[in-house]
């Protein structure tokens, strides 16, 4: 027998075992609960097409699959495929849940996934803003405030001038709020969490205030027709996936691009190396000639711009107007996505999709009668997140210097 290529820590072994046990538990749950309803669930997948899943048999099938996954995981593990298998198992439970919840009903499956992708935009962009600043060593609690402030100003500018100006003003608002965070935390060395929260409160207060005092008496300040989805030629014709990913607004494409670009830039460019360095060990970076403070300023403003564009999604990408506290805590969800994704753009994007899916499911099938109080269905995504974070993700390592002011000597 050859020696294992990787040193496996006790922590990793514990996680692998937990995973196996969790798969078996999920299998048991699926077979006990999601097989209780016999009627077919009809999933509509495009204008006319649809497929029906026999809820009971489908539940059994996926339950058996989960048992198999759990057994293999416990006996020999999946090695490098372990994350893929985790995704597969989660998807299996989710599908069993869907066919059970929608048993005897029909709903637009593709519509739900389309909605998911669309709703992930502000969470993703907010999370990228968080990653940009925290990778540079500044804790960014103020994502919520940036989203909210940008949503408000872009609604006003978009209504008074046009959508382009609206989006631009949204970006500008994000940059302006980020500038406050930057100046106070870098120049005046104020506690970053305090400034971040102050920005959140400020944005919440000022936008509600403006909403009542300016927008309500002047309806012409708050009403625009949002952008329409664009069909990407060829790609949109791919069955199933095409409609979900490539019949979307420009915001969605921009957020895809932003995730890819930031991933590449963080790990493949000089800027990325320096950014990660000033977030981990600014003194070393500074000694080697990186202008730590300047780079922090630049990255924070960039973060504000990205989050601001995410905020503009509400008026310009969907509803066409601003309402009090329209973001409803999505900025904090974005913060959770940053930590969930371990400060990596793709990880955070995954997190954003999961949270967006939870919202979309709630809207599509939240009021189907399943015999279980709807509140339990609605809280399920949060419970799942809790279990996933506690059971499989565990401690995530933050950029080391995040939160510490930097002294230039």
């Amino acid at each position, binding site marked *: 027998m050859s020696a294992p290529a990787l040193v496996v820590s006790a922590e990793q072994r514990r996680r692998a075992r937990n995973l196996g046990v969790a798969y078996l538990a999920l299998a048991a749950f699926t077979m006990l609960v999601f097989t209780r309803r016999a009627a077919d669930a009809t999933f509509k997948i495009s204008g006319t097409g649809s497929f029906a899943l026999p809820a009971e048999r489908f539940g059994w099938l996926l339950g058996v699959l989960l048992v198999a996954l759990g057994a293999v995981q416990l006996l020999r593990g999946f090695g490098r495929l372990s994350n893929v298998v985790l995704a597969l198992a989660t998807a299996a439970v989710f599908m069993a849940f869907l066919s059970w919840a929608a048993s005897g009903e029909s709903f637009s499956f593709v519509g739900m996934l389309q909605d998911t992708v669309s709703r992930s935009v502000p969470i993703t962009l907010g999370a990228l803003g968080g990653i940009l600043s925290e990778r540079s060593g500044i804790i960014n609690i103020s994502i919520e405030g940036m989203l909210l402030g940008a949503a408000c100003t872009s609604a006003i500018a978009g209504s008074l001038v046009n959508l382009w100006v609206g989006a631009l003003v949204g970006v500008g608002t994000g940059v302006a709020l980020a500038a406050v965070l930057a100046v106070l935390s870098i120049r005046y060395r104020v506690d970053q969490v305090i400034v971040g929260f102050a920005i959140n409160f400020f944005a*919440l*207060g000022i936008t509600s*205030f403006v909403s009542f005092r300016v927008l309500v008496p002047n309806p012409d300040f708050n009403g625009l027709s949002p952008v329409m989805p664009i069909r990407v030629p060829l790609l949109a014709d791919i069955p199933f996936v095409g409609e979900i990913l490539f019949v979307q607004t420009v915001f969605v494409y921009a957020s895809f691009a932003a995730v890819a670009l930031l991933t590449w830039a963080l790990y493949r460019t000089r800027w990325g190396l320096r950014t990660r360095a000033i977030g981990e060990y600014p003194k070393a970076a500074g000694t080697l000639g990186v202008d730590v403070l300047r780079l922090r300023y630049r990255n924070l403003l960039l973060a504000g711009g990205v989050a601001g564009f995410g905020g503009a999604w509400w008026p310009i990408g969907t509803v066409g107007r601003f309402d009090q506290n329209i973001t409803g805590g999505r900025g904090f969800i974005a913060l959770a996505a940053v930590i969930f994704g371990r400060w990596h753009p793709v990880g955070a994007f995954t997190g954003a999709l999961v949270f967006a899916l939870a919202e979309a499911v709630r809207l599509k099938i939240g009021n189907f009668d399943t015999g279980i109080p709807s509140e339990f269905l609605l809280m399920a995504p949060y419970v799942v997140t809790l279990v996933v974070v506690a059971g499989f993700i565990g401690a995530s390592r*933050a950029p080391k210097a995040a939160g510490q002011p930097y002294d230039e000597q």
Partner: protein
Amino acid sequence: MTETLKALRYTALAVVAALFVSAFIIVITDIAALREGDVLTALDTLRLAYWSLFKGSFGSLRAISATITGATPLMLAGLAVSVAFKAGLFNIGATGQMLAGGMTGLWVGFALDVPGPIHVTLALVAGALGGAVFGAIPGVLKARTGAHEVITTIMLNSIAGFLTLWLLKTEAFKREGRDDAISKLIDEDAKLPRLFWFMGTRIDLQAHLGFVVALACVAVFWWLLNRTTTGFELRATGLNQEAARYAGMRTRSLMVVAMTLAGAFAGLAGASEVLGLYGFASASLAGDIGFDAIAVALLGRSTPVGTAVSAILFGALQAGGRQMQVNTDVPIDLIIVLRALIVMFIAAPLLVKAMYRLKGEAQSHGQTFRGWGG
């Protein structure tokens, strides 16, 4: 003594600066007056707004009662955030913990049949316990698996919200003859006595004994931090977890202790709202208090006395803001802006110094929250 005076001066200057910026906001958003170039009307609105703000918070016994009523849950929930900060944890979950404590306190409040003072005491204890159990969850998860408390507390807030909604529809909690999510009323003897009971029939004086409970909790928190080993270890863990562990402290258990205590404080906040103010529970029981509590803790620098003082300041602003909204067309949301500005200016002594061109050393505060840990 000069240190205290200095701190007081900075606080006063910061509040003045915040009031000044808010005044500017009130005037420039008076679109109707400004369209006609009528600056005087706009300034008159401003004068009336600030006068109402003061009258509504400290101008009468009624106003003082309103200030106290608003400050009570903010103080307790603020302590919940502060105690976590002291141990280096960021508790965003005061909302969920308040709901948990509110519902357990409520249940004891209407379901048990015991005489007077015992009933209300038991209901409060139940509230503290309910909150403590709910608060302990993120603590245990963090200690055992490293799951970050920012994620877990946000998730638990949503979970608590849905659980509360569900409970309010069950037979055990639902009020007879109502279709909406409103709970039964608590027993008369489970009610927290009114603070101004000697004023007899004045029903507009809503302040209740929850305020005394809150002050007692401030004292407990102070005693714990400054007079006990656990408190010392808690602070050490918050300042430098590695060092604390190296010194032989059980940092993981201390996280659980801190979060349990935080949950108990927040649970009391929920219970005191139910037992003292409403007499029943609804889904909006916690409102924005759990969120505002973070600002209270930040403003109070997570110290017991600081948290208490900033809760009273916030309660006063809230009470005054309501009066302002009645007397003028300035919406109460201005208060949120004002709070944000005060928090920001007080956190930035260097900025305040620069604004007022003060000379001398500005005291630098430590960091509230030392990074994300992990």
